[in-house]
């Protein structure tokens, strides 16, 4: 199964396909959800949501399993008295932060995270962050961003968080490469090893694991994104003079190769060296995909919008695993970022942006895809109707980027199909 042609040939694929734009009920998380993985990625950071009981309940429920330790996130719950007078809310926030900082001396970075209620009452968290930075700095740096549902969808919370960090970063004239996006440590280390072997460097990572990790931005900075949802971060870096290296996202063997190739070209890595570094992991990835992805060959897939990973993943599933895409829905489509992936997505599927969940369910029922990628709220009801589903959230919580995870990524999609076969339900249908 060597469908994995390196996506370098000039094709337009779905790049110019019409986009079905929908406005209705969105069955997606808000940006606060990103805190669940961001607080793990940055062990010296605390995320303080300024919001309502709903926000606290969402974080607790989205975490799915409760974490058996005091988490490095919490919610300052607005109460009736805070809504009455805004001056109070600022003071109350300062009091709660002082208490938190006293109790958790290990915190070096504190993010004040805006929510729907704090946005609606126009609580100025940027100003609060400034005041708190002055009070608790330099040992604790306080930043703010919005993870509210009226402004951000799911993974856009990470985007807003990273974008908020960019203006604070020191200036540099060095010609450094910055890899942008919160990846599991093991995956990040693999990527850094590949870049190092190609002689690309020095390489920095945003977000840095620790507050004092060296990371600076300047006009000679070049950066690549590892996640397709980082539009605002892309904008913030560009405004600081850094240059974006556009590429398909590093999913699967072909995606990873194209992503690395774009960087290698930018940094003048000789082709022989590139090939020498990538040959073995490419072969491993291809084999792993062929093995794990076999059940996907010839099957159809339908994506409900969730994390903005949909377009790159559809490229992976159609190009590298032999699937056919029926519909690829994404909450937002940043063509500047996912353009290269769209170009390598064969024409045919409906490309949808936004959501009207009822209408989309109608289309899904009509299409009866072999595999439906959707959120947790929809998965069991669709399974009960006989459809096979993949929880989209697992794609964000699991190491899936780069060569060594390419097989795991295919396996994530294959597992629901294998499971249905194992439970012998297909025979009954």
């Amino acid at each position, binding site marked *: 199964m060597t469908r994995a042609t390196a996506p370098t040939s000039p094709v337009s694929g779905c790049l110019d396909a019409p986009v079905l734009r929908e406005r209705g009920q969105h069955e997606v998380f808000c940006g606060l959800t990103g805190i669940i993985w961001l607080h793990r990625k940055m062990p010296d950071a605390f995320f303080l949501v300024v919001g309502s009981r709903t926000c606290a309940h969402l974080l607790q429920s989205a975490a*799915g399993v409760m974490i058996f330790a005091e988490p490095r996130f919490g919610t300052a719950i607005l109460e009736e008295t*805070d809504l009455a007078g805004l001056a109070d*809310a600022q003071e109350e926030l300062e009091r709660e932060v002082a208490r938190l900082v006293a109790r958790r001396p290990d915190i070096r970075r504190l993010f004040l995270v805006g929510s729907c209620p704090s946005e609606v009452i126009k609580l100025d968290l940027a100003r609060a962050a400034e005041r708190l930075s002055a009070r608790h700095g330099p040992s604790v740096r306080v930043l703010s961003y919005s993870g509210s549902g009226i402004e951000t969808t799911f993974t856009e919370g990470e985007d807003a968080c990273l974008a908020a960090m960019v203006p604070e970063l020191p200036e540099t004239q060095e010609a450094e490469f910055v890899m942008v996006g919160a990846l599991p440590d093991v995956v990040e280390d693999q990527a850094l090893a590949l870049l190092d072997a190609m002689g690309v460097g020095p390489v920095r990572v945003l977000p840095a694991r620790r507050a004092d990790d060296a990371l600076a931005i300047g006009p000679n900075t070049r950066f690549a994104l590892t996640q397709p949802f980082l539009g605002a971060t892309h904008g913030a870096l560009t405004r600081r003079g850094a240059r974006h290296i556009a590429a398909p996202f590093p999913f699967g063997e072909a995606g990873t190769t194209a992503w690395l190739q774009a960087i290698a070209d930018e940094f003048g890595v000789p082709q022989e060296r590139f090939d020498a570094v990538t040959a073995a992991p490419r072969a491993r990835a291809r084999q792993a995909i062929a093995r794990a992805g076999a059940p996907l060959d010839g099957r159809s897939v339908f994506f409900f919008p969730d994390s903005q990973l949909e377009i790159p993943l559809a490229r992976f599933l159609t190009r590298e695993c032999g699937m056919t895409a029926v519909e690829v829905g994404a909450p937002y489509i940043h063509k500047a970022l996912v353009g290269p992936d769209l170009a390598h997505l064969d024409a045919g599927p409906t490309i949808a942006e936004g959501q009207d969940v009822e209408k989309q369910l109608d289309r899904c029922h009509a299409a009866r895809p072999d595999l439906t990628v959707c959120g947790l709220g929809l998965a069991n009801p669709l399974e009960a109707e006989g459809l096979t589903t993949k929880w989209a959230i697992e794609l964000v919580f699991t190491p899936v980027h780069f060569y060594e995870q390419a097989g795991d990524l295919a396996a994530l999609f294959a597992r629901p199909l294998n499971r249905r076969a194992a439970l012998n339900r297909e025979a009954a249908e």
Partner: protein
Amino acid sequence: MKLTLWTYEGPPHVGAMRVATAMKGLHYVLHAPQGDTYADLLFTMIERRDHRPPVTYTTFQARDLGSDTANLFKTACEAAYDRFKPEAMIVGASCTAELIQDDPGGMAEQMGLPCPVIALELPSYQRKENFGADETFYRIARALAKPVEKTARVSANLIGPTALGFRHRDDITEVTRLLDDMGIAVNVCAPYGATPADIARLGAAHFNVLMYPETGESACRWMARDLGIPHTRTIPIGAQATRDFVAEVADLAGVAPYLDESRLRQPWYAASVDSTYLTGKRVFLFGDGTHVAAAARIARDEIGFEVAGLGCYNREMARPIRALAREFGVEALITDDYLEVEAAIESLAPEMILGTQMERMIGKRLGIPCAVISAPVHVQDFPARYSPQMGLEGANVIFDTWVHPLVMGLEEHLLHMFREDPEFHDAAGASHHGGAHVANDAGEPPRRDAPDQEKQQGAVIWLSDAERELKKIPFFVRGKAKRNTETFAAERGVTQIDIDTLYEAKAHYAR
């Protein structure tokens, strides 16, 4: 503003969702931003429901604010009616929509939808999930229930069970059986499984069984006042409470009390000599008021535990729980602050916790066994098997559930006798748990309270031989022994604890 790490209850609109999702033929239009749809997964994942909750979210965004959020609401209402054709609708706002003051109730009323529309006012910044469920069901009953002729046969409504309730599914079966054994039919069970048409004939029942005051009390009080339907006060959780419940029902229904105790095993299991080791075990109880009150009586009167402390997270139940605590001679802890509960447990050092999933976390961290008696629910609280809390089978289930986390009688003695056995050691925990219990989690963050405590107790020092001796005491009583010894030393102005101090304290506190 209050910092919260974990919460016992969701916002009130989640309570409304628990009512809507439990019912059939009812649709809820919720004015809310997109993220609020997370609540769907509570039902589809935690409770494993095979249908989406009957909820339409208007999904407004920042750019809609100040322009057409009201229109968005109207469009969503119309679309929801056209698609789902519900018998009745409830409409309301989530916390954010409450701030933009679009008045969903007023708007829906003016739209002239061809079904009853019930407006909900749920103050998100004051109240919580249980209030939301109770208020929603009360509003639905008030809007739809009319005086109707009583059923010919004596019948009762079961009031209070909702979606995402702690064992509500199985409690309904058990209570239905208790009533059936007395020749009493169930007229309507609501909200769980009821349609708006069923709500309309609530008045046909001769009395109401108020199963869960948290979610059904307002509706029962209204029905008592306006429809003249009396309701039960006894919650049939525990063997004795079930007997009391049967007596109360017989009285309300004017029938002879009857209870077939042949399937009740709990009293004999508790009396059996192998249960001797349960005697006087100090337990701490925490959860919703109803379950804590029932569990406290079971703990003391039916299992033989000593209640070391109790409390509830729902302030609505503060009064009865305070009264109960006085009866038990302990202080009631009324709080929804998880850290306060943790501190209380740490200072009381009970041998067992009867709590919620939150206390299970606390217990895991402190190395104290915990059995779950109350919501908030976790996927584990929806077992595939029949597993009620109420009635006779409920009493059996509770006995098994509570005993399971403990180290059993003879094993406890063996731990006392051979403390350094490589397999039978403290950290291994109860042998029937497959080694999953370890007193302290690896990778735990630095204890935030530790410096304060050490400062307070700074005067008392453990000498190394006493400390070694302390380690020989099994983990499930070690906390208590340590605390007692320190108190004993402090009271006598002893600043250094040696082995003698340890054993003098043991003799002093011996029961």
